[in-house]
């Protein structure tokens, strides 16, 4: 049988691998993890000590000063800012270039712009111009992709050698070469702080962020051209003096003709006039005294019977929660036609007429003052109070009934004079007839009695 080829597995191969592993172990013991370093760290000294060092090279190969162990809750940015405390301050205060760049979730990490292991003289900031999120600084490069001569802009075109600085004088310098007359005029009108209005996303400055000022452009205001409010202003000072009250622009739109004041935004939103939410507070504290009918005439179910000041009974929370004040009734309560409102509440089914106030008070239906606790109100089938009380409820007479004619009464009482028999209740307090002791009393008959 022929011997098979030995292949790649051989004792010498395994020994060679073992020797190399031992050598690498010795190397790691002597030099530490630097054996895995992809390149030397920067030795560029800033002259300022950060974390006790003036350059990254001074870390001496201690990887964990910058690199984060997999089990640590830190990230590399945390390690960076341990030494670069000035950057940490910028990020916390949102100031400076790092503060601007760290304003939202899509912000680049430190590694996004800064590199290392590129050698002792290697660049520490390597920014990909095309990928740098310049808009996070508050200024987009959308309108500065190419110079007027054609080539793409480079960072140095605007920033010079220090990318963290920007002198706005470069704006005027460059734009003067494009249109010197316009640039001079524009600068004279609006000043040299170009970034106050221009954010770079559009070439003509229409990306101006009006919300940076007190008057926010919300709703329909957002769609109004600058000249809709700022006519014919041509300077920053004139722009700042533009009136900001509603009425300064909308007086012509006021259908209330000033009757509801001049703060339109008390009821109206900026989106549209038609969906106003009326705020009665514009009427002042005393709503009850206002002429509600000037707005609510169409909704008055009383058809004007209770006047125009709805607030006397209703509140602004809703029509249904009214509290009727009887003081609104003209004349005496007793003479009022209560049934015009209370017909549905009349448990007497109209027997006692329409003037409930003759017996009842306005506080409740109970507690009637009719005083018929002993004498039945339906005595003899009486239908109306006036049968017994022709001159009001303070007095009564029994002679109003056909049975109690003066002649009949006189005959019943043995021929006494009619006038001496007028106070029937003295003997007939319960309205009973002649039987028993009732009606046998010896009291003096004094004419018309008092049933109180």
């Amino acid at each position: 049988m022929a011997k098979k080829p030995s292949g790649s597995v051989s004792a010498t191969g395994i020994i060679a691998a073992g020797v190399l592993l031992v050598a690498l172990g010795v190397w790691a013991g002597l030099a530490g993890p630097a054996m895995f370093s992809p390149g030397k760290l920067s030795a560029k000294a800033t002259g300022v000590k950060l974390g006790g060092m003036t350059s990254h090279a001074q870390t001496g190969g201690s990887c964990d000063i910058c690199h984060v162990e997999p089990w640590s809750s830190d990230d590399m940015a945390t390690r960076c800012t341990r030494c670069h405390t000035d950057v940490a301050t910028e990020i916390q205060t949102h100031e400076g270039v790092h503060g601007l760049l760290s304003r939202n979730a899509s912000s680049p990490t430190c590694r996004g712009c800064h590199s290392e292991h590129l050698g002792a003289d290697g660049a520490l900031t390597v920014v990909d111009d095309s990928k740098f999120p310049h808009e996070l600084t508050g200024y987009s490069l959308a309108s500065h992709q190419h110079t007027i001569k054609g080539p793409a802009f480079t960072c140095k075109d605007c920033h010079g050698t220090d990318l963290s600085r920007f002198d706005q004088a470069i704006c005027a310098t460059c734009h003067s070469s494009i249109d010197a007359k316009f640039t001079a005029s524009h600068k004279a009108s609006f000043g040299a702080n170009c970034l106050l209005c221009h954010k770079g996303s559009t070439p003509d400055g229409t990306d101006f962020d009006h919300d940076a000022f007190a008057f926010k452009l919300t709703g329909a205001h957002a769609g109004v051209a600058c000249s809709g409010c700022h006519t014919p202003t041509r300077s920053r000072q004139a722009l700042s003096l533009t009136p900001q009250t509603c009425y300064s622009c909308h007086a012509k739109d006021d259908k209330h003709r000033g009757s509801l004041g001049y703060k339109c935004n008390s009821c109206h939103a900026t989106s549209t006039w038609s969906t106003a939410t009326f705020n009665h507070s514009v009427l002042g504290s005393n709503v009850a005294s206002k002429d509600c009918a000037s707005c609510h005439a169409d909704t008055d179910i009383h058809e004007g019977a209770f006047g125009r000041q709805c607030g006397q009974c209703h509140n602004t929370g809703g029509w249904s929660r009214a509290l009727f004040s009887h003081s609104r009734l003209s004349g005496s309560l007793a003479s009022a036609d209560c049934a015009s409102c209370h017909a549905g509440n009349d448990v007497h089914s109209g027997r006692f007429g329409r003037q409930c106030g003759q017996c009842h008070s306005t506080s409740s239906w109970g507690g009637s003052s009719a005083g018929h606790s002993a004498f039945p109100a339906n005595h003899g089938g009486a239908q109306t109070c006036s049968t017994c009380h022709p001159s009001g409820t303070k007095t009564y007479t029994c002679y109003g009934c056909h049975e109690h004619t003066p002649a009949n009464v006189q005959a019943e009482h043995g021929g006494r004079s009619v006038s001496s028999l007028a106070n029937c209740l003295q003997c007939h307090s319960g309205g009973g007839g002649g039987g028993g002791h009732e009606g046998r009393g010896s009291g003096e008959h004094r004419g018309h009695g008092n049933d109180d």
Partner: protein
Amino acid sequence: MSKHRRELGFAGLGIALVTTVYVVVYKVTGELPPASSALGHTVGIIGTIFMILSQTAYSIRKQAGNTRWGPMVKWLQSHVMMGLVGPYMVLIHSAGKFNGLAAIAAAMTVIVLISGIVGRYLYTAVPREIEGVNPEHLAKAKKALATWRAIHIPLTWTLFTSVLVHVAGALYYATLQR
């Protein structure tokens, strides 16, 4: 192209393809993709897999001796093709930067590559037909090939050991320790 040189043609094609990708990226970005970039890592990983396959697949075929897996010459051609393209990809992965252990792994790659090329020509120098061959010449060729194998295999082990440690270090420091 000679039938027996077909592996060199495939190797040339693979090398040209990788080179084209890198030239395009260089033209666009102005720099070679760093070893730690997505493209750099991809090329490095594929190159390493080629190198491992080049070594192991051929050896397994030789050990198995199973002719149903195809003739040895095909496996040898694959071994040569991947043995050329793999190291090329590993070297281009380095983007010209050689530091620390990565530099040792790159150096070993070059050494094993050269050794492999030498071995390939020693292998073809051994006559396959016994008739008319000078026995002394045959013995010399076989001895040379055995000597080469005694050197090449330890070099290969050394290469893969250094690559293994380099990959482990890269995974830990450049991937886990961000």
